[in-house]
C-alpha cells in the first residue's frame, strides 16, 4: 500500500495526546490506513484499552456502555463507516451520551476507488442529519487542538462530536499493482 501526502506534522501524536489528556480510556476502532499510526499509539498507551470492532456500529454502543461505566471513550473509523452507525447515533442523541469520533476521509479529491466516493461525499451530511457536530481541520497542525476541543465539548456538554481528517492530510491511497487491494 502506498500513501502520499501527510506533510511533516505528526497529527496522530497530537490527536493521541489530546484524547489521553482528557482521560479517554477506551478506544474502539475499525482500522484505516490513515489511522494506523494513531491506533498504534493508543495500543502502546497502557492507560487506554484499544478495542478492534467488527463494525463501526459496535463502537458507538461501546462508547455508550463505557460512559455508563464512568469511562470516556472514543471511536475511530474511515468515512465508509459513517454509513454503518446511523441508528446507533439515534440512541446517543436520545440518551444524551457523549461521543467523540475521528473519521479519516476517503472519496475526496484524488480518490482512485470509485466505490469510496458516495459514502465519502455523504459522510459529513449524514453525521449532521444524525445530530453530530462536525469539525474538519484543513491543516494537519490544527488536528490536535480540534480533537481536544471536540472531546471537551463531548464530555463536558454531553454532545456528539466528529472530527473529519481530510484525505489530503491522511494521504491518497494508491493502487499499485497486484495484491494492493483494499
Amino acid at each position, binding site marked *: 500500500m502506498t500513501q502520499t501526502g501527510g506533510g511533516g506534522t505528526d497529527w496522530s501524536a497530537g490527536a493521541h495526546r489530546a484524547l489521553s489528556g482528557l482521560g479517554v480510556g477506551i478506544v474502539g476502532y475499525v482500522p484505516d490506513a490513515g489511522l494506523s499510526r494513531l491506533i498504534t499509539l493508543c495500543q502502546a498507551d497502557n492507560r487506554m484499552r484499544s*478495542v478492534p470492532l*467488527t463494525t463501526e456500529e459496535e463502537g458507538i*454502543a461501546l462508547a455508550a*456502555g463505557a460512559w*455508563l461505566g*464512568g*469511562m470516556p*471513550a472514543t471511536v475511530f473509523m474511515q468515512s465508509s463507516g459513517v454509513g454503518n452507525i446511523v441508528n446507533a447515533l439515534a*440512541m446517543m442523541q436520545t440518551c*444524551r451520551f457523549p461521543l467523540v469520533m475521528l473519521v479519516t476521509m476517503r472519496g475526496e479529491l484524488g480518490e482512485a476507488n470509485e466505490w469510496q466516493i458516495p459514502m465519502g461525499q455523504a459522510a459529513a451530511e449524514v453525521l449532521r442529519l444524525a445530530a453530530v457536530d462536525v469539525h474538519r481541520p484543513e491543516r494537519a497542525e490544527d488536528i490536535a487542538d480540534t480533537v481536544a476541543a471536540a472531546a471537551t465539548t463531548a464530555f463536558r456538554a454531553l454532545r456528539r462530536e466528529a472530527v473529519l481528517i481530510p484525505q489530503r492530510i491522511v494521504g491518497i491511497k494508491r493502487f499499485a499493482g497486484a495484491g494492493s487491494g483494499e
Partner: protein
Amino acid sequence: MASEGLDRRAVVARLLAGDERLPVVLGLGATTWDAAAAGDHPLQFGLWGAMGSAVAIGLGVALARPDRRVLVITGDGEMLMGLGSLATVAAERPANLAVVVIDNERYGETGMQETHTARGVDLAGVAEAAGFPIVRRVADQAALEAAAALIRAAEGPVFLAIKVGTEPLPLVLPPRDGVLLKDRFREALLGHR
C-alpha cells in the same frame, strides 16, 4: 417446541435475583419488559431502540468497570442483529461479563415472526466458535439454576442461551426517557451523573 420452554419472566427474575445488584443492559424490547416486570431498578439500562447494540453496550460497561460483574440480557432477534459483537467480546475476553439470550425463536415486538433460531441457528454455537470460554444451553429449571451461578462467579465471558416459551404476556414498561435511564444508571453505579 418453543411454547413448551421456560417462563421468560420467571427466568429473568431468577437471573436478576442475588445478594448483589448487578449492572444490567437489556436489549430491545421484550427483555426490557421482562426486567421491568421483575422490578424496575436504576442499574437496569433497558433499550427502547438501537437494536443489535446490547452486547456492545455491556462490553463498554464491563471494560470501564472491571471491578463489577456486568450482565447483558437480550432476545434472540436482538442478538442476531449484533452477532459481530460476540466476536468482539470473545477477542477482549472480559472476565466480568455475562451475555444471556432469552430465546423464544420469535420477533416478539413485531408480530411473533420466526427468527433464525427457529430454523436451527444455534446462538450458543456461535458464542463457542467465537471463543467464549463458558457457554451453556439452558432448557429446564435445573440447568437454569446451575447457569445462574455462573453469571456472578465464573471467570467469563459467559454466554447462556435459554429457550423460553411464546405465551403472550402483559407489557410491563420501565421509564422510556433515555436521559433519565442513563443518568440514574450512572448515579447508582458511580455515585454521580
